[in-house]
């Protein structure tokens, strides 16, 4: 997938090195049956703004290989999104819902085409909505989440569903920092 892919893989690798977490995801929509299950790494952080809610930031690198071609072809996207995470019980723990909005820093789709590979590069607006569960193990906060995300560019959209778990990095503490 060329230099762009190399960059995306580098981002993916660096995120893993930075203790980012991984998720499984599936592209949905028209002409997505040729894609395998995708995978991604993401770093998520946030600042409490109330007992129940955080403003979150998330950077992810998502890779969707094209079936039958290993990692030679497929789609890579690196969205940076901000979200408002609201816990339903108002404690900052437990079940939550979270709308997100952001921008896809990297978007690449590589397709085989009669020996002349097609490499498409794009950026676009990202919208996402999800739910999840916040819990702690010891003193480490974790975030198990399921979300639907869409990247919009050039009059089209790449839509996917992802399931992930991350060790949440929080700046600030509840009851003191809002």
């Amino acid at each position, binding site marked *: 997938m060329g230099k762009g892919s190399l960059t995306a893989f580098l981002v993916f690798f660096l995120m893993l090195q930075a203790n980012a977490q991984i998720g499984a995801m599936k592209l949905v929509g028209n002409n997505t049956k040729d894609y395998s299950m995708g995978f991604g790494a993401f770093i998520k952080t946030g600042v409490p703004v109330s007992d129940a809610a955080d403003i979150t930031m998330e950077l992810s690198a998502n890779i969707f290989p094209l079936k039958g071609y290993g990692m030679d072809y497929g789609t890579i996207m690196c969205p940076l999104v901000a979200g408002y995470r609201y816990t339903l019980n108002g404690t900052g723990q437990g079940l939550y819902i979270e709308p997100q909005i952001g921008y896809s820093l990297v978007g690449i789709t590589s397709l085989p*085409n009669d020996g002349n590979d097609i490499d498409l590069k794009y950026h676009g607006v990202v*919208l996402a909505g999800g739910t999840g569960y916040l819990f702690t193990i010891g003193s480490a906060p974790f975030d198990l989440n399921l979300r639907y995300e869409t*990247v919009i560019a050039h009059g089209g959209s790449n839509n996917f569903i992802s399931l992930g778990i991350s060790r949440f990095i929080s700046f600030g503490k509840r009851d003191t920092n809002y």
Partner: protein
Amino acid sequence: MKFYLTIAATTLVLSSCYKQSIADSMLGVTSIKQTTTATLSYEINGNPVSISVKDADHQLAGSPTLYCEKSGGYILSGISSFGEIVFTFHTDSLIVGNYKYTSYYGPMYVTSFEGKPQYVYNPGDNMNFTVTSYTDGHISGNFSGQLTPAISPGYPDNIYGTPGSVIIKNGSFNNVPVFY
């Protein structure tokens, strides 16, 4: 809060109404010519055989690995590490449907197994192919069969082994290109 969440959910749903992926939109769906991977797999006496060919529409001229060619009838041919498998659809116009042939019309070579050619030869032997789809010049379907090994191939007649001792089952083929 509910109001804002409703707005967010509605925006997300509406944004997904774009019918095309970004790639399709940038190129135009009709201009994308994604290559096709053809596959064929089956079990022969319990041994799995699998063939997969990337970019099946552009296989090496003179030595294609998996294809169907109109030549008299339509000859489906695949080459694996087990050897070749050959099946002729005896028709002038291949369509979706079942094509089952017995030994009624004489011995019919199908494949090789354990170093011996396998034929539809004895009563009860057969090859049963079903074409479930034929679209855009590619066929998909499934097959099974019962064969008899030729233990001593010769001319004019082979010497055959145990009747019906070779079973082909769980056969399937997908996106096999049809060449004219």
